[in-house]
């Protein structure tokens, strides 16, 4: 039996199935094009439309949310204050020791004739918004190509590596966090000086894989960037659990990110370094080695 309401239900179901099919085709197309081409243009265009709206809402709500957050954290602030005061005293002692070492380094560099590289140029930016779901590992910042930001640049905060610039429009840019499964970071374990690759898992600890590790890594060992994809020496995290290398096997363990990614408000984009610099440096080194040999 086909009543008028029956036809309406059929029409709805047909439309539903058609839209799901379109969604399936769009997803397949996006996977096959690796998110480039038309998809990238659409993403940039959409973000350009949303950025002013997000800036407006952020401008209005940030003070209110900050106030509510401050009141709710009042009890914890006292403990945090005492902890920070202890930390400041400890760091002041370290600064004095470091100053003496810096003097020695300058003298040694002068003796050896070494050129000291300038500090990397950075652009400070504010986190404007995040992805729309709990499964998105991205943040949007309020600086874009107008400020010299291009895709691929490293993003850091005072604690270490936050992620890399992924998509750029004139006034905003998208950062893919180091917890995103598509982000891999070449790293060095400071205690052993051996290298590996850290990969995001969506949330929580990162996965560290070391393919030619000869030595064990221990809990709380520090892990920094090795300079292959990001500027060298940026803190990535600390080893979560001790792991030993076994002959013929990859050393695998977890790394706790140095940065508290759920708390970041401001970041710096490293605009004065790109992987190409590292490649050129490698080429120059190999040429000078060949020339010297």
């Amino acid at each position: 039996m086909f009543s008028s309401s029956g036809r309406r239900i059929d029409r709805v179901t047909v439309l539903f199935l058609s839209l799901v099919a379109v969604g399936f085709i769009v997803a397949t197309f996006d996977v096959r094009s690796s998110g480039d081409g038309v998809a990238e243009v659409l993403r940039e265009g959409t973000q350009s439309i949303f950025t002013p709206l997000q800036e407006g809402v952020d401008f209005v709500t940030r003070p209110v949310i900050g106030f509510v957050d401050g009141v709710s954290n009042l009890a914890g602030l006292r403990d945090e204050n005492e902890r920070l005061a202890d930390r400041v005293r400890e760091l002041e002692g370290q600064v004095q020791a470091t100053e003496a070492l810096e003097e020695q380094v300058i003298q040694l560099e002068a003796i050896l004739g070494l050129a000291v590289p300038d500090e990397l140029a950075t652009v400070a930016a504010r986190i404007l918004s995040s992805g729309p779901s709990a499964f998105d590992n991205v943040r949007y910042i309020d600086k874009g190509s107008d400020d010299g930001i291009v895709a691929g640049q490293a993003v850091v905060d005072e604690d270490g590596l936050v992620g890399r610039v992924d998509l750029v429009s004139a006034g905003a840019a998208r950062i893919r966090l180091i917890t995103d499964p598509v982000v891999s970071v070449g790293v060095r374990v400071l205690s052993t000086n051996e290298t590996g690759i850290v990969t995001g898992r969506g949330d929580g600890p990162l996965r560290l894989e070391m393919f030619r590790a000869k030595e064990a890594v221990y809990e709380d060992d520090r892990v920094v960037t090795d300079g292959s994809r990001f500027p060298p020496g940026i803190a990535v995290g600390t080893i979560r659990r001790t792991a030993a290398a076994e002959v013929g096997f990859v050393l695998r363990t977890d790394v706790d990110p140095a940065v508290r990614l759920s708390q970041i408000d401001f970041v710096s984009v490293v605009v004065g370094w790109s992987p190409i610099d590292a490649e050129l440096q490698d080429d120059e080194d190999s040429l000078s080695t060949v020339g010297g040999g």
Partner: protein
Amino acid sequence: MSRSRVVISLLAVVVAIVLQTTVFSPGRIQPLGVGPALVTLVLIAVSTQIEAEYLLMIGFTGGLLMDLIGSGTLGLWAMTLTVIAYAASRLKGRFGDGPGYVAATVVGLTVGGQVLFVLLGTLFGQETISEPELVRKVLLPGAWNLVLTIPVFWVLGRAFRSTPGQWAA
């Protein structure tokens, strides 16, 4: 026929996306580290105000916008929200049975939508199913949406009040 209801519904979805990415983003209002799924809740709320065909179109459009400003594969949220819109259009007839039914629908469709997104993401090569915090990310949006049901339904009810009469379900 009231086009203004469709426009209001679409605007409500856009506002929900903006709020989701700013006010309910990490570091702002995210109790226990996960925010609500506001777009899903808005879609359920407007389901009683517009025809099913328009609801499906708005669900698909809202999902596509989420895909475009998210980090995942395009089309996954579009499919997910289309399914949620279809389910909501089928279930809205019983919203009059009482607040318990509305609450169950909100929680069920929110959690179901999160699960569907995880499955679709896995099908298209994302590692969403192996995320360490997966259960929390799937269940908590349902709980927060339940908390926000009354204010969201109230606000949208006020917004639709000034428009010409409701379409027949």
